[in-house]
């Protein structure tokens, strides 16, 4: 099966060039921010961000969300200093993603894609932190970009995507299942194509490719598993795609859970119910963040 699917996939999305390229400043910026903390040049970072007015403005708006910082931040330089490299990188990516696709092309609730992406980024990071995964902040971007393929589908296959969305809403199923039935391939495959083209790090690419089939992930298994569970939690707790999806899950029976158990000792001690309840106030905060990000 995999060969024909792959062929169909490549022929269907041969237009990948039509997808937005990464903004010119993002590459050099990410390179600057990847340096060890003591080598990062604040002035250079500030100057690079300031070059792209729309990213700079978006960046400031996001930086002032309660989700990212406690104090009010008025300048790009202030953002660079207070937020730190990882957080800044997350915000840059978020700003880029927000401006990448016009909301009008999205057939579902217009804010839903971003609420789900930010939600999944945040929940993944909190889950990683809670279960004691080393470097939990690294997973934020994986969560943020896990559904990149939905953007690819909505932009390159707009008609099919519309009918997929309608089918998902009508049958109260996931977009993944609707894509499988309609296209034969899914946003995991198309997302991976774009991730390849953008040269994203392998952790992120593995998450994009396997977040619905974590048992198939050979590398980055813990990240894939966490994003898979967080994706479910978001869809279950009001940070899904804005339609009613009949999703039922027993986390401890989920493939991602057994996968995670291999790398996280004492996973059984996690109070899943409490973690779930905690998310109910996050959902509100996320909606506020997305609404702020789209202010013009």
């Amino acid at each position, binding site marked *: 099966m995999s060969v024909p699917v792959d062929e169909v996939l490549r022929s269907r999305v041969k237009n990948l060039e039509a997808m937005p390229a990464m903004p010119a400043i993002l590459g050099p910026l990410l390179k600057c921010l990847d340096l060890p903390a003591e080598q990062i040049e604040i002035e250079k970072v500030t100057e690079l961000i300031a070059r792209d007015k729309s990213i700079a403005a978006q960046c400031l708006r996001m930086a002032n969300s309660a989700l990212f910082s406690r104090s009010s931040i008025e300048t790009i330089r202030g953002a660079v200093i207070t*937020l730190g490299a990882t957080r800044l990188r997350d915000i840059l990516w978020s700003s880029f993603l927000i401006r990448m696709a016009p909301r009008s092309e999205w057939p579902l609730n217009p804010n839903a894609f971003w609420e789900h992406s930010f939600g999944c980024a945040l929940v993944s990071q909190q889950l990683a932190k809670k279960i004691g995964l080393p470097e939990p902040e690294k997973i934020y971007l994986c969560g943020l970009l896990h559904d990149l393929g939905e953007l690819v589908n909505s932009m390159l296959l707009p008609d099919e995507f519309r009918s997929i969305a309608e089918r998902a809403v009508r049958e109260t199923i996931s977009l993944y299942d609707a894509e499988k039935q309609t296209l034969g391939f899914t946003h995991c495959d198309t997302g991976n194509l774009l991730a390849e083209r953008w040269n994203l790090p392998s952790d992120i690419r593995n998450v994009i490719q396997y977040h619905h089939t974590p048992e198939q992930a050979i590398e980055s298994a813990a990240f894939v598993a966490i994003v898979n569970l967080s994706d479910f939690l978001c869809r279950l707790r009001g940070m899904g795609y804005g339609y009613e999806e009949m999703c039922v899950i027993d986390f401890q029976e989920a493939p991602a859970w057994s996968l995670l158990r291999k790398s996280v000792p004492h996973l059984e001690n996690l109070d899943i119910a409490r973690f779930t309840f905690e998310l109910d106030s996050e959902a509100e905060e996320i909606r506020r963040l997305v609404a702020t990000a789209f202010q013009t």
Partner: protein
Amino acid sequence: MPVPPTITDQQVESAAERVDPTLIRVRDLIYKVCGIYLPDNKFYFLNDRCDRRLKALKLDFLGSYYDALTTGSDRETEIRSLLNEITVGETCFFRNPQQLSALRKVVLPKIMESKAKLSFTRLKIWSAGSSTGEEPYTLAMILLEESASMLKGWNWEITATDLNDYSLAKCREAVYGSYAVRNTEPYYLQKYFQSQGQSYALIPEVKNRVSFSRLNLHDESKMLFMKGFDAIFCANLLIYFDGASKRRTVHHFYNGLMPGGYFFVGHSESLYGVSDEFRLVHFPGATAYYRPSFWEEVSDERPR
């Protein structure tokens, strides 16, 4: 070139960081003792309810109130008083729509499918701690809605129990004020209620579907007879029990369920650390506890 000591990876700061730390301790205490979790967006509410107790006890600071809750001689009574403030006026028809939707769209079809295979056509539901009857009557309305379709050819019964005779009398009377029907859609109001001046009386068709009886959940011998249920509802009642009696009662509920049955508690109530037997299941916007069945086939059809 400024020294960049501030370029460190800060963690995501949640709204909780800006809240009085004592309030967070009260929240965590409530969760530890009762299993009720108030998320960050309920801090305002919690603060307000604590204020009421501060006034009642003539205390000036939340800190002293926290002491009263933890080290005071009347701490158990005080926790109960605070819980009363938190859950007061919560009862109404259709209180937890997402839970009801899980019952109607997932739980009932699933249970009926496995029962039908064994040629069983009977469902039993128990509302434990039914208070003044809103919950069991809501369940009755939901099942009545399905009686011509999904439940066609099936028998079903709803048992409601409470300790309080006054509440049971209210149940049998089945006349409610407007506050109790604040979540009730006009469709249900018109179909199942008759208005009597300012009040709403349930029609006999609904009243007759629920049988009420007095039951103390601590009464071990009587609990042993509560058997064979497909779903049990017990919202915001176990929170008043201490750890040992909660574990005992939840164990009785487990035994009272058929294998494959579901146990529903309050919206933000958790059984963490209370039961090793039940499995936590997530539905959209709701959680429930599941008694695994032995004959259940291992299915490959997992959600994606």
